[in-house]
């Protein structure tokens, strides 16, 4: 018996979500009295996994798997789970994790719980706490199958350093021709921008900004903070910003450390989608805006005056604390 964690890489480097998943897997392993084995594809260096408690690494180096392919990855991870005699498979909740996990669940005939926020309870069956109703509630779910898959929410369990050997073994799964029925024709990804999924800080704008021509306010503040930019639903519906920036219940979820909402009144769907963020700051000229009730810090004021000043002050702060 062991715990297997799938640690995603991008251009050969592990994502932060992978270290979070490894930290969580180590927590599960400690509860169950076993070790963590990681499975990684085409990583530059797997040693870093040892900092988060990974004892062994099954390293798959295969040029056919240079680009993500859900079917082939799920097939390979299922074989890794068998190789490691894993009863529990842990992964993050990135777009790719969410894509492959259901395929893996059917292959392993394993119960899959997504959006898990805490270590499982193992005293009375195997139960996990998940976020549901777009963060408006949690549920406790029992996984009743022998094999179990847990998708750990971003920023929920966090990183826990825990030194282990991360002893690497090369692993070659048997891949089938059908694993490659989907061909990636092109990828369109801005490499110079932080993504909402990966960002520690997200700066988001709403209708209060009056028009797309004013988005430099959001972008300048985001630049200083190394933040991703986002927007409310009306802003994306009006075409001021691309859909990919829409955060909220029907858009992207945000689980950053810091979320700064500017000119966003705080519709219930928006609040739900961003509520997993640790700290929320609201800047709005309407003191009655519902977002103030959901925020940690608020400024009642005109965004056109407050935001440029805040950007300048943060620049100074960053320069002094660099």
């Amino acid at each position, binding site marked *: 018996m062991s715990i297997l964690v799938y640690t995603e890489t991008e251009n050969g480097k592990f994502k932060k979500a992978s270290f979070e998943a490894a930290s969580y897997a180590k927590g599960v392993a400690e509860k169950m009295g076993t070790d963590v084995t990681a499975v990684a594809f085409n990583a530059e260096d797997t040693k870093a996994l040892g900092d988060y408690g990974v004892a062994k690494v099954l390293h798959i180096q295969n040029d056919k798997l240079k680009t993500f392919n859900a079917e082939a990855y799920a097939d390979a991870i299922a074989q890794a789970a068998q190789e490691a005699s894993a009863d529990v498979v842990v992964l993050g909740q990135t777009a790719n994790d969410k894509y492959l996990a*259901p395929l893996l*669940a059917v292959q392993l005939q394993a119960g*899959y719980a997504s959006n898990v926020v805490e270590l499982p309870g193992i005293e009375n069956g195997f139960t996990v706490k998940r976020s549901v109703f777009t963060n408006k509630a949690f549920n406790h779910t029992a996984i009743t199958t022998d094999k179990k898959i847990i998708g750990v929410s971003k920023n929920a369990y966090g990183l826990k350093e825990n030194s282990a050997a991360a002893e690497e073994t090369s692993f070659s799964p048997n891949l089938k021709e059908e694993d490659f029925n989907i061909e990636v024709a092109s990828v369109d*990804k801005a490499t110079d921008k932080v993504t909402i999924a990966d960002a520690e800080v997200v700066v988001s704008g709403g209708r209060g900004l009056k028009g797309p021509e004013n988005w430099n306010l959001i972008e300048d503040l985001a630049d200083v903070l190394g933040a991703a930019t986002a927007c409310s639903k009306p802003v994306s519906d009006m075409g001021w910003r691309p859909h*990919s920036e829409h955060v909220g219940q029907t858009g992207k979820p945000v689980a950053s450390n810091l979320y700064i909402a500017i000119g966003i009144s705080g519709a*219930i769907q928006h609040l739900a989608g961003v509520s997993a963020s640790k700290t929320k700051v609201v800047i709005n000229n309407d003191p009655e805006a519902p977002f103030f009730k*959901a925020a940690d*810090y608020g400024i009642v004021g005109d965004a056109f005056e407050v935001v440029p000043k805040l950007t300048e002050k943060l620049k100074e702060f960053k320069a002094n604390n660099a």
Partner: protein
Amino acid sequence: MKILVCISHVPDTTSKINFTDNNSAFDTNGVQFVINPNDEFGLTRAMWFKEKQGASVDVVNVGGPETEPTLRKALAIGADNAIRVNTPALDGYQVAKELAKVAQDGSYDLIIAGRESIDYNGGMVPGMMAQILKANFVNTCVSLEVEGKQATAIREIDGGKETLKTSLPLVIGGQKGLVEESDLKIPNMRGIMMARKKPLNVVEPSSTESFTQTKSFEKPAPKGEVKIIEEDNLDQLIDLLHNEAKVI
């Protein structure tokens, strides 16, 4: 092309979320149910295939009789037939298995579901269904074109998009982007009248096997009061973010 659109019956996005029976069940009192928004984008895209490419569009739901108004709404939007698998939805795997059976029995070429339902947020039914059917699968799909048996789909990835080429049979985990918000169809009176006469077939489930069980719910702990900072005292905000919240 035969299209099956999977419709989840969910509380409206503005619903207050409360629980009943000792926090073991969702309190449906006063809650308005709608077509899951992610499914609605897919349904509207399916209607486009019907209008432009002569596809047939059926809708399916796994649930009790209380979900039928949601299926009728999908018929009013323009779907041809509705199927209800008569069993409460227990978990993602059970639902995926029932939907896969309907898809197989009806020999559908394209199965469109939402990337997740906005109630349980499981995000697993489309992928599980595809795996059970051994069909191709594209998740978080924001654009879909089909020519003959070939499909081109755009999937949202973290921080960008990926264009994928694949073939039917295909399962889609759809979302906003498949069509624009402004293209979503509101049923008109004629559609609603016609929907009453369209077939809504009730089929019995093939099994009640599930992989997970919901035990109980809880609401998040109440939030502390917001700290209001004067707009001419931004240094205080920076200090709080640095020393109190420790996020910068």
